[in-house]
């Protein structure tokens, strides 16, 4: 008997006391919890996102669509970045105001090459206000998972209010599980030394979130 068959046989024997129940899963039990906590209008939801992001030490900026290129250029300049990783589908106008060297996301690049890049700019798939989380799903404007991981500085643009949801349940509804997802809540952090929170161990030590509104 293969190990697979052995394990499955053991499982069946172990639960032999449980009467088999054919109730469809959706009706098997009550989901008595809330879809979101509290009621807010779109503006308040964006404010909550900003508060919670800042609480976990992300740097939050707000601007209009017209100001976005200048904002990104300023953030890269303040950081002193010489190079920026760019997802293939990032709107080119976002980087129109900066002369920092652009490194297009490419599967051929080695992790060591990526390690020499200073910053990365991406869009996101959805942002969750209650937890202060941005979610990347690898779409062309977000790129491969590693480009938001290896460089030490990540600028993430969130279109508000359309990309912002209130809660984790609302966020999951919008996401495609077949895509590789990265949920980011503040910069890389550890509490492993006496439970003192320290930013930045392996992921980007600085996370800047730009909340961009309107056209």
């Amino acid at each position, binding site marked *: 008997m293969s190990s697979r068959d052995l*394990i499955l046989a*053991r*499982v069946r024997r*172990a639960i032999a006391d449980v009467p088999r129940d054919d109730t469809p899963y959706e009706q098997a039990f009550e989901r008595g919890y809330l879809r979101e906590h509290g009621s807010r209008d779109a503006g308040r939801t964006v404010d909550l996102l900003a508060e919670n992001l800042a609480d976990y030490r992300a740097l939050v900026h707000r601007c209009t669509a017209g100001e976005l290129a200048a904002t990104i250029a300023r953030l890269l300049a303040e950081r002193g970045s010489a190079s920026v990783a760019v997802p293939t589908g990032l709107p080119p106008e976002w980087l129109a105001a900066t002369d920092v060297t652009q490194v297009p996301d490419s599967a051929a690049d080695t992790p060591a090459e990526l390690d020499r890049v200073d910053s990365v700019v991406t869009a996101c798939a959805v942002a969750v206000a209650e937890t202060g989380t941005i979610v990347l799903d690898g779409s062309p404007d977000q790129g491969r998972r590693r480009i938001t991981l290896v460089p030490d500085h990540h600028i993430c643009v969130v279109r508000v209010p359309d990309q912002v949801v209130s809660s*984790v349940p609302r966020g999951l509804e919008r996401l495609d599980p077949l895509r590789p997802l990265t949920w*980011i809540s503040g910069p890389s952090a550890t509490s492993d030394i*006496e*439970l003192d929170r320290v930013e*930045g*161990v392996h992921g980007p030590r600085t996370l800047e979130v730009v909340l961009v509104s309107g056209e």
Partner: protein
Amino acid sequence: MSGGTYLGMPAFPKAAHEAVRDTTLRGNLRHATHTIRAKRATAVAELSDWAELREAGKQIKDHTLRNLDTYLVQLEESVTAAGGTVHWAVDADEANRIVTRLVKATGESEVVKVKSMATQEIGLNEALEAEGIDAYETDLAELIVQLGKDRPSHILVPAIHRNRGEIRDIFAREMGEWGRPAPEGLTDTPAELADAARLHLREKFLRAKVGVSGANFMVAETGTLVVVESEGNGRMCLTLPETLISVVGIEKIVPTWQDLEVFLQTLPRSSTAERMNPYTSTWTGTTDEDGPRDFHLVLIDNGRTDTLADEVGRQALRCIRCSACLNVCPVYERAGGHAYGSVYPGPIGAILSPQLRGTGSEIDASLPYASSLCGACYDVCPVAIDIPEVLVHLRERVVQGGPVTREGARVVVKPAKGHAAERAAMRAARWAFSHPGALRTGQRLASRTRRFHPRTLPGPGRAWSETRSLPVVPAEPFRDWWQRTHGGKDTAK
């Protein structure tokens, strides 16, 4: 601190006896558990529907366990359809052989690891080392443990028993042996220590070809695996290598994608007391040109089906390894994680280890007693595991023996050694309580001789009194006092 193995560990009472005398350890533990306990309560209080989330988490896990065969098969199909390969391992040896074979097939002799309880449980690092493969732990706390040639002592913060000074010394002494040495003049500030770890590990991440992980959840419907972490070492191991091998216990399934909405709310708040942990990664098989080209999922049993067979004990398999029960446990706070002799310390370890491994060894037979049954663990558990209920159930097993499932077969275990005296004492008590004359005589005799009573019991009673203070016998038995002061009359009327 002795070696990196749990083999031959002394039973809990002895290990705990030594641990409570270590004042540094107690200080470190007290600070850590009290800090996180208070933070957790605040994070939980933010969600007005916590009770409903907890109930849903319990129901989802119970439903999954009741239909585990169906969901395992469904998971296998969806992972395979998404480009992954599924392997099944009955026990630790088989799991280790599978992983070793997979690593060797890549031609590599080192792997980077995300912290994983399952791989610690099966002793994967040691098994790989025996085959000439170096496994590097990349979680900061696991690195501290690995460099310190130590054992983890907490599910979430494995180096909780170490303070910053100890960590500095370990880094300064050991990092050079494994790779990039610690910077000159390293101080003990957490930020500097984290920076030293970043530099030390980054060279390993950037050249790694094989990553090994566990998973917090596996979604049967989609074949998605989920890893919840803070530092980014998880993301490094899950995305930079060409081959990813995930070793996961069969109980970690949830049926649907939607179910994650429950656990992604309850797990971070229960474990690190955050609204959300800094990084959560999900992946479904492989994705072209993003992340590993090869993905292997090794599903391990290793005592889980035996645990599932126990109608009372099976609820331990609901555990999502948040570690909230450790942080509130008065026994854990004083004894520390090592005393439990297992990768699963604290209250959950006290019910999980004796079920996964059986109660045959001295340490496993002692674990159901490593508790004051205060119930704080049950109160904080986000999937409502009634740990005290299982502890009492396992105590009965240890003292009386009885039918259990071992490696899939129904067997009857004998009472554990060392509990003969307890059984004899209980029999004697039963006899005395049904013979009032004898009880009275015995009590008076005990009162009169109280000055000569030893502090520990002799002979077979020794095992019991070794870990307990003997009660002081009063100068006068209660029945005599009652007779004297109330004349034997009930005055309450």
